[in-house]
Structure formats: structure tokens, C-alpha cells
């Protein structure tokens, strides 16, 4: 548990620093998705191992799977929405 928490803490911390520091929106989507998809589920995995085989650890694994599914989907939807919105603005500027 200690090892996963240490690794996850380093990932989350570096990810948030890089997230704030990058200059462009599309380059900021990348570290945000990484920190959410690897760092936070590692914390949950460590807690599930700490808890043992109970109902609570089953729910922790459910939250973990849900975060792993929805994090990349949300990042992809954000990048796609930003692209579509910018395209609309450029088209309206041309007209």
C-alpha cells in the first residue's frame, strides 16, 4: 500500500504542476488525463488492498473501474468540443 501511495502521490503532484504550467489548451488536456487515469486509481488500488476482501473494497474497485472508463472519455470530449467550438468561431469570422 505504501508503495502505491508514494507512486500515486508523485504522479498526481507532477501531473497537476504540468497541468498548470503548459501553455496551450490541447497540451493541457494530456497531463490532466494522465493524472486522473493513473494516479488516482493507484490510490484507490492501495486502499482496496489495505481493506481486504469486503463489500467496501468491492465498491472501491467499482469506483476505480468507473474512473478508468470516464476519465479518458471526458478528456476526449473536452478536446473534441474545443476543436468544434474553435472551428465554428473561425467559420463565423470568415463570414
Amino acid at each position, binding site marked *: 500500500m505504501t508503495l502505491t501511495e508514494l507512486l500515486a502521490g508523485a504522479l498526481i503532484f507532477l501531473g497537476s504542476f504540468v497541468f498548470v504550467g503548459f501553455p496551450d489548451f490541447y497540451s493541457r488536456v494530456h497531463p490532466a488525463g494522465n493524472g486522473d487515469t493513473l494516479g488516482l486509481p493507484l490510490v484507490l488500488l492501495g486502499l482496496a488492498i489495505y481493506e481486504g476482501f469486503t463489500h467496501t473494497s468491492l*465498491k472501491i474497485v467499482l469506483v476505480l473501474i468507473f474512473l478508468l472508463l470516464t476519465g479518458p472519455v471526458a478528456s476526449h470530449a473536452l478536446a473534441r468540443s474545443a476543436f468544434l467550438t474553435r472551428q465554428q468561431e473561425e467559420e463565423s469570422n470568415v463570414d
Partner: protein
Amino acid sequence: MLVSALFVILLATGISLYRAVMGPTAHDRVLAINVVNTKTVVIIVLIGFINRRPEVFMDIAIIYAVINFVSTLAFLRYLESRRVD
């Protein structure tokens, strides 16, 4: 150990909130709020373990994760079309 992990995630949340406040575009703010909400799910689970009754806080964490995802997609729909439907 749990308290130190909680402090690391809280510090990272504070750093991410800077982008939510100072973000140049609306999409930057939505991205930052999504990151902060995803960290909040893990913070809720950690608070449950620190209080030694995680079975109560796990349900709150599941509901918070679902609301986070749906609200992000709803915000993006609104930003694309400027309509709520």
C-alpha cells in the same frame, strides 16, 4: 500514511484550482473543474478511511463520480451549441 496521501492530493487540488480561476477560455475552466472533481472522489474515500467507517463514504464517492462525469458532458454540450437542450 493516509493523512499524508490526503495532504498531497489536497495540495494538487489547490494547484489545479489556479487553472480554474485564471483559465483563458471556458474549456480550460471545464477541464480544471473535471480534474478537481475527480480528485475530490478520492479525497472522499480517503476521509472515509481516516474516520474508520469507509462503507458510508463509498456510496457518496460513487454518486459524486457519476455526477462529475454527467456534469462535464452537459457543460460541453452547452459550450458547443450555447443551448441547454
